[in-house]
């Protein structure tokens, strides 16, 4: 600022001199003063242009010298893509393993439930002394068979529960991978902010027609909602969906 004030004073002094030369009719001296003022303005402009060029050059140099951008684009981002694909594979495998175990166990549970219900009915009959000796002999065979079969069934269910337990190990690996990708995204963000800063220093402005492109792009579905990132156009719960639908006459 002090430099600017100084320059202004200098210009002011020259301008006053210019006016007095014109008034006294000294055209030659007046022309010289005018030329001096023009020179002064031009040198200011060149200085400013020089400073910008230097800044630009230095920033470009700093980007190319740490070659972080190149690594990000050539290696890190494709690498992150691979890792995220692996997360999809692992989570899908875990879900299928769990579903397999559940689908194997459910019929065993149902069979166990049915047999228990039948045995309970028979046992009630026995307790209320409505059972004939021959029926009791048959019942004792059924009970023995039940013991034999259910031992195996329970063992199978225990195995299935163990498989479900082990299928949860995906969480550890996928958690680590996702944490790495989050770090990478933060790094890309920092680099982009640097680029935007450089751009605005050089007077570049974002194209406003691109600005709202994301909001207007209707072909891209919004997808699942994430807690903490809800927006006003989103209904939060099933109850809200029901309310909205009933307001539409459903």
């Amino acid at each position: 600022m002090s430099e600017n004030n100084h320059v202004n004073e200098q210009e002011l002094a020259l301008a006053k001199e210019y006016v007095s030369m014109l008034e006294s009719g000294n055209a030659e001296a007046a022309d010289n003063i005018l030329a001096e003022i023009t020179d002064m303005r031009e040198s200011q402009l060149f200085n400013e242009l020089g400073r910008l060029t230097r800044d630009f050059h230095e920033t470009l140099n700093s980007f190319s010298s740490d070659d972080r951008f190149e690594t990000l684009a050539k290696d890190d981002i494709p690498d992150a893509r691979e890792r995220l694909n692996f997360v999809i594979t692992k989570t899908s495998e875990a879900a299928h393993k769990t579903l397999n175990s559940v689908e194997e166990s459910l019929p065993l549970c149902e069979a166990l439930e049915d047999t228990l219900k039948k045995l309970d009915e028979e046992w009630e009959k026995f307790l209320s002394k409505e059972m004939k000796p021959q029926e009791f002999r048959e019942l004792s065979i059924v009970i023995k068979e039940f013991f034999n079969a259910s031992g195996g069934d329970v063992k199978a269910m225990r195995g299935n529960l163990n498989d479900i337990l082990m299928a949860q190990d995906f969480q550890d690996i996928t958690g680590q991978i996702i944490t790495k990708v989050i770090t990478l995204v933060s790094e890309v963000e920092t680099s982009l902010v640097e680029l935007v800063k450089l751009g605005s220093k050089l007077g570049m402005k974002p194209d406003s027609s691109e600005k709202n492109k994301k909001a207007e792009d209707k072909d891209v579905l919004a997808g699942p909602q994430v807690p903490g990132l809800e927006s006003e156009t989103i209904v939060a719960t099933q109850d809200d969906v029901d309310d909205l639908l009933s307001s539409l006459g459903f």
Partner: protein
Amino acid sequence: MNKDMKILVVDDFSTMRRIIKNLLRDLGFTNTSDADDGQTALPMLKSGSYDFLVTDWNMPGMTGIDLLKAVRADPDLASLPVLMVTAEQKKEQIVEAAQAGVNGYIVKPFTAVTLKEKIDKIFERIDAAK
């Protein structure tokens, strides 16, 4: 409501298809088939005399909303009850589905109770309209 009715479950993720089919089985509906997107589902619906369609929205090939519109535009399928089970919960999308003639709309993640409630409600209305 007929527990033997033929149900088609459409979702691009096989885990979700399995979950929905298991939940339906638990509710007593065992006559279920599945498809991974609208393009696969539509010919099945046309030739298969299904009684009920449960579909996701966001799928490659043909989306659930396009499948719903195609079903409503086909004179043989127009009256097929359709339940949407989707992660899409933008107001305008729900309105779009309603306007396209959806019978029920469930947002993911959902519970077995919600699924039962919506299916009950859909068939109560259909039975009441008869």
